[in-house]
């Protein structure tokens, strides 16, 4: 990997991490962080959608009229998400049912759009691929971190395997919506304490 692509990857993964730094795109995925399996499937789906749509947007960047570029980007993303949804329905029907509407909501996930708009629209396919990969992996590991604690404390399990047994009292609040907000707040707090942001709040308000 040449140094430039490595740098792009690292920027997406940590320096400009979509979750800590830009607080974008947490909508559709926080809801599924109460079980690690669901989160993992959702994250893989997101990595797939982001890479393919970024590359497609980048390939088409010179033939897309500027006025309708947002619409074209949304349609590209939606097409990949439909493929993902059909794949999950066919091969992982149980998880697909649990994720419900949230797979479809990857379309309006702000990071996918955000990266297409901010990076893939101006760059060649290869750097776009690494940018999308870095951002989506950076996003995924935060969500997996959140899901790990929510599942462990809420259900006492790790990927469905009971870990905390005996007289452990399950923290039911962790698997309910407030748990997700508190865990994300803690994750943001930790990340910003470890590495204070250089330029605050540069994420676009969406």
């Amino acid at each position, binding site marked *: 990997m040449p140094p430039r692509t490595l740098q792009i990857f690292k920027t997406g993964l940590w320096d400009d991490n979509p979750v800590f730094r830009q*607080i*974008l*795109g*947490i*909508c*559709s995925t*926080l*809801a599924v962080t109460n079980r690690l399996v669901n989160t993992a499937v959702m994250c893989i789906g997101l990595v797939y959608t982001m890479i393919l749509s970024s590359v497609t947007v980048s390939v088409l960047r010179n033939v897309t009229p500027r006025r309708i570029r*947002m*619409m074209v980007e*949304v*349609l590209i993303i*939606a*097409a990949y*998400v*439909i493929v993902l*949804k*059909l794949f999950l329905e066919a091969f992982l029907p149980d998880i697909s049912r649990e994720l*419900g*509407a949230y797979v*479809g*909501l990857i*379309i*309006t*996930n*702000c990071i996918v*759009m955000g990266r297409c708009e901010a990076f893939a629209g101006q760059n060649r396919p290869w750097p776009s691929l690494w940018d999308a990969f870095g951002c989506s992996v950076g996003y995924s590991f935060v969500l997996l971190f959140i899901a790990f604690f929510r599942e462990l404390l809420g259900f006492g399990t790790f990927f469905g395997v009971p870990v905390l047994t005996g007289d452990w009292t399950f923290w039911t*609040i962790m698997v*309910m*919506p*407030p*748990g*997700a*907000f*508190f865990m*994300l*707040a803690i994750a*943001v*707090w*930790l*990340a*910003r*304490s470890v590495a*204070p942001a250089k330029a*605050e*709040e540069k*994420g676009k*308000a*969406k």
Partner: protein
Amino acid sequence: MMLAAIEAGTPDVSPFVIIFAACITENMVLTNFLGMCPFLNVSRELKSSSGLGLAVIFVLTFTCLLNALVYKYVLVPLEVEYLRFIVFIVVIAAFVQFVEMVIERVSPLLYMALGIFLPLITVNCAILGASLFMTIRNYTVTQSVTYGLGSGLGWTMAIIAMAGIRQKLIDSRIPKPLQGPGITLIVAGIMSLAFIGFSGMLNIR
């Protein structure tokens, strides 16, 4: 035949119950996490929050109506339900664009108030989310509209409450890493705890 099958699976809930439930017990932001990005980013000021909230109520109600009609009378008879993601997002984008044009012509004053928020709304997860939930739960057209209205009201209530709280927090001494999004998320968590108190009162799933 297809339609009859769909009608059979419809939950038997009064539209008024749906408005209340979508607003309080199934609040879009606080229990379904939809529309989080504007909820966190726009809630700095009361004025812009209420502007965005009004735009969301309006767009959510009408896109739910349009999408319910399109789903029931076009996609289901043609048996292409899997295309709903693309169709819904196109309907939403087209509707938002249309409203923007109409408002610009008819009322420049309203355009000044709502105009800047309209383009943001196309990518608001809450709008697409409401349309997807209504198809998953097999709502009738009337139920879908009231669901859209209730969700919009609930979303607006949440963002206005959040903006009010954040204005009070301006002078508070908050640890540096928690400033901005961190403290907002904690406040959202506490608000969500309060809303959980209502759960179990009504069930619309």
